[in-house]
């Protein structure tokens, strides 16, 4: 399967194979991304864009990697392309919407979850969270329970006095830390938001059914 990478390497400087458990995977520098994907689509018939996503490597630098999966309908083969974003604070990569229109929503979702900007995207705005949500949920420093903010609709927020509150984790989900000595690896929440429990303010319905 590395024939593909071998045939592409002389044409694209900086392309490297990437260890993968299944399909051929390539590490590609940001500048070569668009020509590489265009070549794969036109010459090697990778006609279906399966997925565009990203990985947050937390402490490593470069921090964000954008991952593309392409599938060739004619030959029944996959390929994975991974690009590292150069900037850790404001990551950005070029957008492939011009090559695959289906990437439009995928890139919006990656922007929504990670904050990675796609240059050249026609309408980059949030898709899964509401416009105006201040955080990027899938970044590793964002807690699973969430951070307190306002409800998306100001009228309803005023009427019901409800807010976006962190979920009460109560010590869960129960997963033991891996590899440490048995006495220390009791199952506990990986997420430290386990000591708070917000009482439900709307209990009793007294304020609400007037």
């Amino acid at each position: 399967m590395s024939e593909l990478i071998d045939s592409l390497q002389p044409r694209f400087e900086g392309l490297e194979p990437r260890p993968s458990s299944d399909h051929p995977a390539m590490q590609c520098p940001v500048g070569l991304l668009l020509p590489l994907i265009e070549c794969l689509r036109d010459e090697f018939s990778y006609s279906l864009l399966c997925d565009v996503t990203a990985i947050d490597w937390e402490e490593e630098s470069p921090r964000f990697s954008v991952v593309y999966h392409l599938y060739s309908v004619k030959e029944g083969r996959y390929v994975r392309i991974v690009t590292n974003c150069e900037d850790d604070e404001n990551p950005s990569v070029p957008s492939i919407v011009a090559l695959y229109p289906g990437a439009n929503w995928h890139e919006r979702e990656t922007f929504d979850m990670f904050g990675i900007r796609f240059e050249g995207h026609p309408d980059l705005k949030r898709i899964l969270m509401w416009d105006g949500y201040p955080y990027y949920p899938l970044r590793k420093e964002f807690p699973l329970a969430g951070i307190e903010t306002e409800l998306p609709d100001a009228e309803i927020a005023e009427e019901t006095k409800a807010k976006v509150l962190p979920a009460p984790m109560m010590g869960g989900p129960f997963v033991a830390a891996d590899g440490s000595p048995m006495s220390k690896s009791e199952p506990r929440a990986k997420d430290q938001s386990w000591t708070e429990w917000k009482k439900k303010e709307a209990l009793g319905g007294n304020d609400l059914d007037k």
Partner: protein
Amino acid sequence: METQESQVGYNSKVEGDVIVTKVDAVINWVRKNSVWPMPMGLACCAIEMMGVAASRFDISRFGMEVMRFSPRQSDCMIVAGTVTYKMAPVVRRIYDQMADPKWVVAMGACASTGGMYRSYATLQGVDRIVPVDVYVSGCPPRPEALLDAMMKLQKKIEREPSFKSLNKETEEKRIWA
């Protein structure tokens, strides 16, 4: 027609075709036997709700098959499925548009308490934004459980002080038992 509070002393030979009872009993009897649900079907519980409306677990025998998606014409909002923070204002708006008297059934674990989705995007229980009358547990609850919940709602409606609220401008506090 007997309810817990009304004493119907009825002897057809003496009284003929007349029953004497309380106004509450009549109003509540009418209301509970034709609760028109507004299905707020959001996720998997909506499939079980559709199963309740289908022919095996017929909800039509309770008079509740009129699942119009119009809030103005319905009595009970069945919140079936996970309510996310993005959807919460929509649920509240639709609740506000329903005409009195109205009830809410929180169907399933996600609507009651957030269920197994303890995350940044899920409202931990729809009772944070609307007052709930009956909670149904289960993920998803069996259709029989939903029917049981509707029957409990009917019993709750029976006990409401409806006549007083018809006369007053503001509604009396509902029974939270």
